[in-house]
Each structure stands twice: as structure tokens, then as C-alpha cells.
């Protein structure tokens, strides 16, 4: 295949960025988008030019490291699929594909296509955990969690933290991410003691870091983990519950 890759180049957060066009030849439809970048980089290095920086790691769709915007869409043309599992067979031979970083006010560009998504971890740091020390846990069989609830918790826990939801949102909101984590932890019996405190703090930090949600739902289309839109309702539910209860749990 032959593709023109129009790629965002930016040296660092402090510098200005611009698009540059590159001709990629000899790629096959079985290439992933990231392997196409690998090949392009090999080409650039052999010509003594700067290779394109981008984040990726497991290349199996589970680590959440990768994430680029492809023709205006986070991760690329195939729905609910991370960048590392998008293939060139989605593009017509000879076409032009535009690659840019995940766009969001709170994602600073590190270099080229790599961005800083540490805001997502600051939300977890605000309460997305269970305050249980090593060695103090009760027998896991001593509390019951029905099969259905365990499966539901897992549906919500499936988030890979790629941050595409934020990049897809016209508001730049992280509510799909926040809701998924709140509902996951609210379902687990061992983590309920701090349920209200968690909701309050995580929502506060999410609003500071990212924006409010207007229920556009574009996050759901790009989410590689298939987090459902009901996770967004979870943000309001957990927050309202905290206000009405007025207690830590």
C-alpha cells in the first residue's frame, strides 16, 4: 500500500506544532497503524530525519499507552478499538490519513503524538482506591458478591485508562472514566466504607482537571473497553448519594 501520512510534529509542550506530510510505501493492509509508524520511522532515521514520537507498549489493546487521533477521531476509524489494533485495511490505497495527538486542554503534548494524561491518575489519587493495608483483608469468601454483581463490577473495571473518552468529548469531560471507577468500587463489598468520600473527592478533582459532561455520548463510541454510557449516570448518582447521605460511606 501507499499512504500519505499527515502527521502533527511538535518538539515539546513549549514549542509550536505543525503538520508534515510523509509518503509511506511498502506497507501492507495487515499492518497496524502503529506498525506503519514504525516503518515510517525506520525510513526517517535512515534519511537522517527525526522519527515521530508516539506512546505505545503492549500493542494488544490492554495497557492503554497508545492513543492517537486519526482523521479527527480518537484511536481511528474502527469503533471501540485502541490505536494499536487499528489496521491499514481500514484505509484505501493511496489515501491521505491525518494523525495528531489526543486533543484536550488538559493533555499537554509531550512530543509529536505523545501526550501527558497524568490528570487521569490525579483523579484516582483523590480516592479511587480501597483503604485496606496489606495483610488486613478478611477472607474473600467471607463476604458474598453475587455472580451478576461481580460481572457488573468487571464491566465497569474494564477501563484501560487510555483517555480516549476525554479526547472524544466536545467538553473534554472525563465522566465516563470517573463513573466507571466509582461504580466498580461501589459494587465491591470491601470498598464501600469510603464510598461517599470517594465520590465527592473524585468528582471534585475531575471537574478541576477536566470539564463537565453534557451527555454527548461520543466517549462511548471510541472506548476500547466498551464502558457503557450508564457509567456517566453513575457520576451523578454517586455524587447525589453523597450529598443526600452526608456521611463518609
Amino acid at each position: 500500500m501507499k499512504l500519505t501520512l499527515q502527521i502533527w510534529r511538535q518538539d515539546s509542550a513549549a514549542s509550536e506544532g505543525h503538520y508534515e506530510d510523509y509518503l509511506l510505501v511498502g506497507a501492507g493492509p495487515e499492518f497496524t497503524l502503529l506498525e506503519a509508524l514504525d516503518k515510517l520511522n525506520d525510513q526517517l532515521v535512515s534519511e537522517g530525519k527525526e522519527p515521530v514520537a508516539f506512546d505505545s507498549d503492549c500493542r494488544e489493546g490492554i495497557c492503554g499507552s497508545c492513543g492517537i487521533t486519526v482523521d479527527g477521531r480518537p484511536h481511528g476509524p474502527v469503533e471501540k478499538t485502541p490505536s494499536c489494533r487499528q489496521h491499514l485495511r481500514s484505509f484505501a490505497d493511496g489515501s491521505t490519513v491525518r494523525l495528531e495527538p489526543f486533543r484536550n486542554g488538559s493533555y499537554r503534548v509531550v512530543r509529536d503524538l505523545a501526550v501527558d494524561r497524568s490528570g487521569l491518575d490525579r483523579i484516582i489519587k483523590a480516592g479511587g482506591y480501597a483503604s485496606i493495608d496489606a495483610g488486613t483483608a478478611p477472607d474473600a469468601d467471607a463476604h458474598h458478591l453475587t455472580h451478576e454483581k461481580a460481572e457488573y463490577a468487571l464491566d465497569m473495571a474494564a477501563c484501560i485508562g487510555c483517555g480516549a473518552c476525554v479526547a472524544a468529548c466536545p467538553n473534554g469531560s472525563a465522566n465516563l472514566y470517573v463513573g466507571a471507577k466509582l461504580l466498580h468500587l461501589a459494587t465491591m463489598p470491601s470498598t464501600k466504607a469510603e464510598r461517599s468520600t470517594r465520590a465527592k473527592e473524585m468528582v471534585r478533582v475531575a471537574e478541576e482537571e477536566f470539564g463537565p459532561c453534557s451527555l454527548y455520548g461520543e466517549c462511548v463510541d471510541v472506548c476500547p473497553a466498551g464502558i457503557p454510557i450508564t457509567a456517566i449516570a453513575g457520576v451523578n448518582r454517586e455524587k447525589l448519594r453523597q450529598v443526600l447521605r452526608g456521611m463518609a460511606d
Partner: protein
Amino acid sequence: MTLADTGTRVRPAAEAQLLDGLRTIGSDIAGMIPSDVPAAEFWTDRKLHYKLVSPLNRRKFTVIVVGTGLAGAGCAAALGELGYNVEAFTFHDAPRRAHSVAAQGGINAARGRKVDGDSLARFVKDTIKGGDFRAREVDAWRLAEESIRVIDHMDAIGAPFAREYGGQLATRSFGGVQVSRTYYTRGQTGQQLQVAASQALLRQVARGSVNLHTRTEMLDLIVEDGRAAGIVARNLITGEITAHTAHAVVLATGGYGNVFFKSTLAKNSNVTAAFRAHRRGAYFANPAFIQFHPTSLPVSSEWQSKTILMSESLRNDGRIWVPKTPGDTRDPNTIPEEERDYYLERRYPAFGNLTPRDVASRAARDEIVAGRGVGPLKNAVYLDFRDAIGRLGRKVIEERYGNLFEMYTDATGEDPYVVPMRIAPGAHFAMGGLWNDYDQMTSIPGLFVGGEAGWGYHGANRLGANSLLSACVDGWFTLPYAVPHYLADLLGSPKPALDAPEVAGALDDARGGVERLTAIGGTQGPDRFHRRLGDLLYQHCGVSRDGELLAEGIRSVQALREEFWSDLRVQGQTDGFNQELERAGRVADYLDMAELMCLDALDRDESCGAHFRTEHQHPDGEAKRDDENWRFASAWERGADGRYIRHQEPLEFVSVPLETRNYK
């Protein structure tokens, strides 16, 4: 009797000569304090004798933990909870991304709740046998004992383990065992454990007990007065190289499988932290032990960046075959039954397609080498569901394996319901690693190791679902006892000063190392060398090895290394985000690592589990261990003359008597 059956053979002169030029034989080493306590009670006894640090004194100690996977995040969080100052380092932008996240199947625990006959002793037996008697027995006992509360802890911090309809934890079985002791969360067990562990870590970051350095890579170990005193690290965004000192250092930096380039590991997993500690004096144990997973996707193009793993559960219903005629390029569905060779069913009638990983990988490689490989590059074998679909219907197969079939389609563009899958052996889990004693301490006092970066538990072969377990146990329930025991003696001594000569020396070395790479000014980027190194290793130090191949491998690695140091090109600047520079440093270490792997494989003149020397096999083609001569772990030290020194840790098997593995 042929030479291959005798077990001991005389090393050919050329092989012996090459070995002598590369290594000398050193002293035996002990991994544990001699004791009369039975293996089953060893851990309880050891914990009783560990020294403690009182809660008020803990904040006087700083511990560096490198890596935030299951072992690293667990260790950093647990030490933080206890009250130590912890400096945690990861090259990722977030701790959750460590490669533990990718493990699918499950985590073993010897809870023995069911009436299927499981127990601590059976867990130990399965683990020792799975490791083909090249692991330390008392370590397996500890792993078994702590596995019980690991499940409780991971459940409590948020891992949503699968549950039965009545609300109890669910289990399933896994390869190499006949009981049901694997706890799981669908096919995302690693992810759920990793997310829970990284949340626990972030809780300590919020509390201020852990200082987390993201996008920071360890470049060197600082050793002062023979003790680990800190690390040198590079900030991957700014390029700044700085020293960090501590009373103890824990490396939980994962395995070295990426030396093969195309492996099932994440792209950035590397050996640099462990290898540079090895350069500073830490022994490297059993580097030849690499597990090849039999159901990886074959390489489909020159530019493929890695191999993807398909769950080996597929072998429950899929039948593995190749065409009987070499070079048969017909559409597989048109190849008649009598022209197919279901070689695993033929060779292993009892286990059939469910033979252990090393056996299945070796058999596939034999077929491929004999010219019967399939696919465009003739580098795969078929995994065929035609008969299962015919017998059970498509719907049942969809329910059992639907997500895996989708994954296959996604990766290859082919529909496995219609065309047989193509699979091939891929480099997977590293069973070698930095040598550590029973207290997880390396040969450098104060330097500890956890998870896949170490060598413990699994030996020459390994059980699936024991690796998540060992990483969790090391992080949460072994290191938090062993590290304080070491620290207790250091009460009153400050952590090393940043202006100490050893610190400045290590900093200079690290900066010099970066300059050395960038100064070459050659023509080829680091990835080109890495790809070639990987091909070379698959060929010479892969699924099956022999002395001649390995000797040739060593010479080829040396030649490639020479080319690397004369023709490498590192594009870009050193004072910023430069992924080429990161890769260059890692490939430099891989080249040395590859040489050590080949050396260890050439030296270990026996077959055991995944280390299969074709010179040592039973008449039926099974691995032939040589317990008389090789019942020890090799721990390699880098000698002053450039040669390696092989130390031996003799291995005792008391509770699990030595026996031959048999899966027929």
C-alpha cells in the same frame, strides 16, 4: 544406545574451547541459611527470626522501588503503608500500564477449599515438577502459603474476581495441574490485579509515603561500600540524568523476553535495570530459561512489531496439524484427512493437543523446520476448529472462545470459524533473572528483586497462572518482611550523600554511556539491530538448542554487537523526549544479554523443561535432565578479565522427590 540417550556426553573440543574463553567456574553459593526446619515450616520460622524496625523508626529509612507492575506496585505500597519513605520509579506515564496488565488466564492459590484434593503440598509438587526440578523448593512452599492471603488482599482492594452464583469465589483449572486452583477475572486477570495494585500505590502517593517518578528510567545502580545505595535515572521527558540514594533498592522490572524482539511482551519491557545491576556485581541466574508459548500468532510481515498470544485454552477444542507433504500450499480446507498429520495426537496420545507448553512448542518447531510449516511465510501450524464446530455446533464454540476468535480475526483479517487458525511458538516468559537468596536479596547486599526480574519459583519450565501469583506474593508478602530485616541493622546510618564519590562516579558513567551511544554517528537505527538480534536468537537459542548452533549464535551476537558499536545512529537530542535514545540503550544491553543467554544455554549440557538441548533427549524425544551433573542454578558473575564466572547454587528436593516429567 546412541549418544543422544546416554545423558552425559563429552563436550566437543571446539565447544569446550569457546566456553573456556568465555567463562570460568566459581564457587558454590547458598541461597538460604542452613536449617533443620522442614521445608513446609521454613517460611514461618524465617519470619519469626526476621529483625523488625519499630514504627517510629521506619520513616528514617528510604527505599527505592523500580518498576510499578504487580511486584513493584505491591512492594512500594506495602512499604509505604508500613511507614517507610518510598521512592517509586516507572518509565511509564502511569503505574497502571506495567506489563502485568496483559496477563490473561488467572492467578493460582492453594486455598484447597474444594474437595478435589488440593493442598499446600500438592501446590508445591505441581510447581516443582512444572519447573522441572530447577527451582528452590522452600521458595515454592512460601509461594503456596502466601497465595492464600494474596487472593483475600487483591479482592479487598478491588479486583473483581469471578464469583459463583452463590457469591463465593470461582476457580478454574490450568495447564500442568489436575485440581481447580486458578482464580480469575474473565480473560483480564492481570489487568484487574494490576489496576488494583496501582490504585493502592496511588493511595500511598496521596498519603505522601510514596514519591512516584513516572516517565523515569533507571540507568545504573549505585553501589557504596559493597551495598546498593541508590540508582541513576533519566527523566524521559527532559533528558535530565540524576542520582537518587536510599538505604535499599528493590528491582521489580520484569523479564527480558524482548531480547527476541518479536515476543509476547510489551514493546518497552526491557532488561536494562537488571542488566546494569548485573554489571555492578549482581549475579544473573539461569538466563537460558525462556518459555516459548505454543499458541502465539505467527509473524506475518517483516514489520510486525511483536507476537500476540492466543490463550492456550483454545487447545481444549482445537486440533493442531500440518500437511503431511512439505511445501503443500493448498487451501487447508481442501487438504483431505489422510494428508493431514495431527502430530501432537500422534506423538502424545494421552495429552494430545494439551501437552505442556514446552512440548507443544518444540513439536511445532520440528514441523516447521522440516518444511511442513503453513501460511505465506511457512512459519506456522494449523489450529483447527472444524471438527469441534461439526461436533458441538458453531454456537457452543462462540460461547467458549468468541472473544479469542474475534481477537484472531482482528489481528489477521481471517475468519477462524471458516479457515483454521495459524499459530507458532513465541518467546514469552523469562524464568531466569537476577539471582536472589531466600530473602529476595541479590548478591549485592541491599539490592532486592521481585517478580519476573528474579529467577525464583519456576525453574526451567513454568506453570501458567503461577506468574501473577509470584509477582503479587513478592510485592505484598515477601519483600515487606525481608527488606526491613536488612534495614534493621542500618538504624542510625544516614542514606548515602548525593555528593559521595560513588554517586558522582555512577552519574558520570551514565552520562558517558549516553554520549558513547550518540557519538557513534553511524547509519542504522537501534530497531534494525534489535530485529536482527531477535531473528538470530530464535534461530540459535530458541525452542530447541544444540551446542553447534549455540556456539555459532555466540559468534554471530558478538559480530552484531561490534557492528552496533560502530554503525549505530541515534537520531535527535539527548536533552529531551527521545525514544530512539531509549531504545539504543536497551539494545546495547540486549546484545550483552543475548551473549550471556547463549553462553548459559551452551554451558548447561542437559535438557530441562524449556531448555531443550537436542543432544539430550530420551528415545521418545522428551527432555532428558541430568540431575547428577546439573542439579543447580547457574548464577553468572562478570569477572574482571571480561569472562563470566559461573557460581552454582545446589538445589535440594526433599518434599518432592526427583522424578521424570511424563505427559504421555
